[in-house]
């Protein structure tokens, strides 16, 4: 029972890891929490569903196309919205991302209605291993998230591009003196975050079903995970996601399952009181 809960918690947490990474990367570069993570996740899930269920493409290819389209949408939203507001302060950007989130979510709702949709995957029996029940979706989620997190970490910490991104996040003016174009880095960051949100949309769609509120279910835990890890810290976001996932699942031992979401709120609240820079954050983020 406990083993099963820990397993479920780790998988739930890994599902949160990619959106939390997307949130924290954009925060690192642009210094505002992107409220539209949930809606972008929903959008990615719908794109993959269209490719997969309507055009009959295999899920892997559908996911790849969805990731590309979501990356394009994320870059487009930067060009149309966020770039124009870059000097306006983080609150303005946050409110703008609320607007973007309304737009994306309702584009999906307008096109496909409120009904829940299912991705076209074969139903398989869960694997039993030492008394644990492991779903195929859980395996898929865990492996793809682990691969993605490793790829993103390698990209950030070993490639020239990652170095440029970290430099821009640290001090944009100083980075541009060294010839790093901020706008290019910002666009690449948006594209990366679009990709990972689309992928997590597909994984979330496998876990539940695709519906317009899919992203909303993850919004609060994702924010909790990113804050827990310290906004702007990629490794912190992943750790935070795992902690939140575990805490939510393990809380079912003592709390009714209805209240599971309370756990994320409680963690945010406690953390902000005790250590407001998060687990891996440097000094508190101030303007």
């Amino acid at each position, binding site marked *: 029972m406990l083993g099963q809960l820990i397993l479920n918690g780790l998988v739930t947490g890994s599902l949160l890891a990619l959106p939390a990474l997307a949130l924290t990367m954009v925060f690192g570069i642009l210094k505002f929490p992107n409220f539209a993570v949930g809606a972008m996740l929903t959008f990615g899930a719908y794109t993959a569903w269209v490719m997969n269920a309507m055009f009959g493409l295999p899920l892997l290819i559908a996911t790849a196309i969805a990731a590309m389209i979501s990356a394009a949408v994320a870059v487009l939203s930067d060009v149309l919205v966020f770039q124009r507001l870059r000097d*306006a302060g983080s609150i303005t950007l946050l409110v703008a991302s609320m607007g973007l989130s*309304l737009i994306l*979510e309702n584009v999906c*709702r*307008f096109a496909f209605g*409120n009904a829940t949709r299912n991705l076209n995957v074969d139903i398989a029996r869960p694997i039993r291993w030492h008394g644990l029940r492991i779903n195929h979706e859980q395996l898929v989620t865990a492996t793809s998230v682990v691969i993605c997190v490793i790829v993103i970490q390698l990209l950030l910490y070993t490639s020239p591009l990652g170095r440029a991104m970290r430099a821009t996040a640290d001090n944009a003016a100083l980075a541009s003196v060294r010839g790093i174009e901020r706008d290019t880095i910002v666009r690449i960051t948006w594209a990366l975050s679009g990709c990972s949100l689309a992928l997590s949309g597909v994984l979330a769609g496998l876990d539940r079903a695709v519906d317009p509120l899919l992203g909303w279910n993850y919004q609060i835990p994702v924010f909790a995970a990113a804050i827990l890890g310290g906004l702007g810290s990629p490794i912190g976001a992943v750790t935070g996601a795992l902690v939140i996932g575990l805490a939510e699942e393990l809380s079912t031992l003592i709390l009714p399952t209805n209240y599971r*979401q309370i756990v994320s709120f409680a963690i945010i609240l406690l953390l*902000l009181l005790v250590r407001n820079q998060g687990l891996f954050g440097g000094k508190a983020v101030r303007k």
Partner: protein
Amino acid sequence: MIAYLSTLAVLVSVAALVGLGLNFQWGVAGLVNFGVVGFVALGAYATALTVPYAGWLGAMVIAAAVSAAMSTVLAFLSTRLCGELPRHRHHRLWRGGRYSPAQRKLADGRGARHCRHPAAVRLLVPAAQYDAFLLGFAVLLVIVTFLVLEMLVRSPLGRALRAVRDDPTVAGALGKPVLLLRIKAFAIGGAVMGIAGSLHAFYLTYIDPSQFTSIITAYAFMAVILGGRGSNVGLVIGAGTIMALIEATRFLKDALNVVDGAQLAALRLGLIGIGIILLLILRPQGMLAEPYQRVRDFFPDDKEGR
């Protein structure tokens, strides 16, 4: 017709009250609050629970007091971390509008709360004229709140709050109690939101957690941005414009035969999103910017103070 007009007026009034509360917190005092809907819900529940015992006026006062008290507690927690982070905390309350244990218990145990027509009102007016009465009541409530807030904005408290908003360090150096001022602003704004929730409860006479979604927060932010941060007149105009637009798009359904109800709802919400972004880009100062005030606006007789 009178029923429709009064519905419209009450909707505008609730939006205007919520917006006035947010405008005091965010526009005047510079405190961002993404938990708006939580305070509205709190006010509505406080009203619904106390109206059988306290009467309608008493319930309204209690609603305002409960919301103000909750705001004070939250302000204490968040101003400790002043600066960037407080907003995240309010997500909790904002979702708490749906998920807080007490409300869940209410929703699970007894279904939706029924808030009876205010007893005193029913004695005074027959049911047929309830709509007309509510219309007048809502408008009166907005006018009174507006006047009180406008007085506060012009008072020394308002001046100090604007100073804290523009530069807390300087205001603190001049001996203004920054923390206390912020808490006051948060509590006053919260009380107004509680009153808005109370009106909401009186109007619908029936509340359940699903009415309090984050869209209320989005409307309030849009009203403040549209009207111009810090300007109460602008806010009332902004809230009126937004609600009028939202109501007007309801009739789009007749014009556009191709869309069904769900699509129309999606279209309207999407348009609101586009509206927020366009406003932020094209007219960030809003329709009526906060009036620029000089010393002699406050001290007309003071020849030297310029």
